[in-house]
C-alpha cells in the first residue's frame, strides 16, 4: 500500500519519429492525469500512439515537447541516472511477452528489483515470498520461467512489478495471448494493485476483458486522445 497519493501528470506531449525521409507524428499534444488507485486503459488501433504514450508514461522514452510529472517530481531535465532511479523506485513494468530473465528462477526474477534498491537479504526474501503468495506462485519459487505456463509467467511478471510497491504500474497488453481464465486472473491482480495498493495503473490493451474493468478507458486515434 502506498501511503501517499501520487499522480502521474502529462501535459501537451508531442513525439514524432523519422521513417526514412518522412517524419511521423505519433503523439500530437496529449495531456493526461492518472491518480493513485486509478486504473486507466489505453485503447486504439495499431499505430495510434498507444505504445509511445505508454513509454512516455513509464519514463523509458522522452517527448519532443510537453511536460511530465510523477509524484510532484518534474521529469523534464532529469538525466539518465535520475530517470533510472525514479523507475527503479516508483515504476513497475508488465510486458506483453513477460520479459522474465530465463536463467533466473521465479524467486530471483521477483527479487531483482529489490536487489537494485539495496533491500537487505532477509527483508528481500520476505517481500518476494509475499509477492509470490499474492499471485499464487509461492510453490514455484525455485522454478525457471521456462517451466511455467504463459499465465504463470505473467503472474511472475506482476509479482516482479508489485514487489517493490510501485506508485505507477505500466502494463503493455498484459492479457494478450492468454486464455480467458488466466486473463481474468491477471485483470483481477492489476485491479487489486490499483485499488488495494493505491497504485496508478496504465494499461495499453486491445482486450475488451481488460478495458471493461478499468476505471477509465482512453481511446487514442492518430496520436490524439478522443
Amino acid at each position, binding site marked *: 500500500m502506498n501511503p501517499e497519493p501520487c499522480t502521474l501528470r502529462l501535459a501537451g506531449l508531442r513525439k514524432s519519429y523519422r521513417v526514412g525521409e518522412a517524419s511521423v507524428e505519433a503523439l500530437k499534444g496529449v495531456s493526461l492525469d492518472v491518480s493513485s488507485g486509478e486504473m486507466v486503459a489505453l485503447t486504439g488501433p495499431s499505430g495510434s500512439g498507444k505504445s509511445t504514450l505508454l513509454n512516455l508514461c513509464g519514463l523509458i522514452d522522452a517527448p519532443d515537447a510537453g511536460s511530465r510529472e510523477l509524484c510532484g517530481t518534474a521529469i523534464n531535465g532529469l538525466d539518465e541516472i535520475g530517470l533510472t532511479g525514479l523507475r527503479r523506485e516508483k515504476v513497475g513494468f508488465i510486458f506483453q511477452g513477460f520479459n522474465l530473465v530465463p536463467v533466473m528462477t521465479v524467486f*530471483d526474477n521477483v527479487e531483482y528489483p529489490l536487489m537494485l534498491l539495496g533491500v537487505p537479504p532477509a527483508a528481500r526474501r520476505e517481500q518476494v515470498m509475499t509477492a509470490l503468495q499474492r499471485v499464487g506462485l509461492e510453490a514455484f519459487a525455485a522454478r525457471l520461467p521456462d517451466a511455467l505456463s504463459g499465465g504463470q509467467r505473467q503472474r511472475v511478471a506482476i509479482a516482479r512489478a508489485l514487489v517493490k510497491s510501485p506508485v505507477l504500474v505500466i502494463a503493455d497488453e498484459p492479457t494478450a495471448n492468454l486464455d480467458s481464465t488466466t486473463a481474468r486472473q491477471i485483470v483481477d491482480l492489476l485491479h487489486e494493485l490499483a485499488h488495494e495498493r493505491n497504485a496508478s495503473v496504465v494499461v495499453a490493451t486491445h482486450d475488451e476483458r481488460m478495458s471493461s474493468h478499468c476505471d477509465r478507458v482512453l481511446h487514442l486515434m492518430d496520436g490524439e486522445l478522443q
Partner: protein
Amino acid sequence: MKWLIFAWKNVMRNRRRSLTAMLITALGTAAVLGSGGFALFTYQSLEEMTARDTGHVVVAHARGFDGDEDVPLQHGLADSAALAAKFAALPGVRAVAPRMQFSGLISNGDKSAVFVGSGVVPEIDFRLRGPQMNFIAGQPPATNAPQPEVVIGNELARLMKAKVGSSLTLLATTTEGNLNAVDVLVSGIASVGVPEIDRRLVLADLAAVQKLLLSDKVGTLSIYLKETADTGAIAARVREMQPGLAVKTWRDLAVFYQAVRALYNRIFGILGVIMICIVLFAMSNTLGMAVVERTREIGTLRAIGTLPAEIVRNFVLEGMVIGGAGALLGMVLAGVATLFLLFAGIEMPPPPGRSAGYPLLLSFSPPLYGAVTLVVIVLAACAAWLVSSRAARKPVTEALAHV
C-alpha cells in the same frame, strides 16, 4: 555474491560457446605460461652459468676492464691475497677466486696453436665452476706440482694430439715484454660446450702462470656469493671498501646472457601480445554474441531500473568468470606440462655456436602465474566492457523492440 551467481548462470546459458572461449583462454594462458616458464628457466640457467664463470662480483685494477694493456698484467692487482681475505670476510661471501688471463702459443713439439688461458687456484675454481665445466678425462691441475699441470679444451687436445699425462709447452709474453716458456703436464681434458672456446682453452695453476709471466699480480678477484640476489649489495659494499678499484657484477660482464635475454624478451613478448589478442578476440566474440542475443533482456532490466553501468558490470562479471575459469585451466595445463618435462628428460638441440644441448625444462614461477592470470581476467573484463557498454546505453525502447 548474488551478482556473481547470476553471472555464472548467464555464462552457462550457452555452454558450448562459453566452453570454447574458456578453452581458447586456457590454451592462450598455458602457452604464455609455458613460454614464460621456458624463458625463465633459460635466464636462470644462464645466470647461474655466468655467475659460476665470472663470479658474482669481479674486482680489478681501476683500468683492469679497459682491455688496453701494453704488456700482460700491466693493470693487474698487487697484494691480491690481502684483498681476497678482506672480501672473503664479508657476510654472504662464499669464496674469493683470484684469476688472471693470459695467451700465447701451445706446442707439442711438432705443432703449435694459439691458446687463451686462465690462471686459477684449482681447489677454489674448479669447485665453484661445478657442472659448467665438463671433464672428459683426467682431473683439475694440482697446485704447486713439480711440473706445472694444465686442463685443456677437448678441441685443443685433439689439435695437439694430447691425452691426460701428455707434456706440452706454453709460450707467453712476460710482464716485461719478453717471451717465456714452461713445460706443462696435461692433467685433464674438459669442455665448456662452446667449440670455439674449447679450441683455445687452457686452465693452469695460478702460481705456475705467475711464474711464466714473471709477476706476482693477479688479473681479477672473483667474489662468489651464497645468494645471487645479494650481488648488488655486495658490489656496493666492495666499492665502498675499495674506491680505487673497478668493480663489476656478473650481469655487467654477461654479454651472452644479456643478448639472449633481450632476444627471448622480444620473441616471447610478441608471442604474449599475440596470445593476448587471441584471448581478447575470443572473449569479445563470445560476449558480443551474448550481448546481441540479450539486447531485449537488457532493455527489460533497464526499464525496471538497472543503470547502464550495472548492466556493464554484469557482463564484466561474466567475462571475469570465463576468463578466470580459462586462466585456472591454463595454469593447470602449464603445471602439468612443467611436471611432465621435469620427468621426461627431453633435450633441446645445441644452440648455434655450442656443442651440447640443454634440458627442455619450464620454471614454475608463482609471480608469473599470478601476473598472467590477472592479465587474462583483466583482458576478459575489458572485452566484456567493450562489447556491452554500447548495448547498455542503447535507448530502452530500442532495446525492448530488438528482435
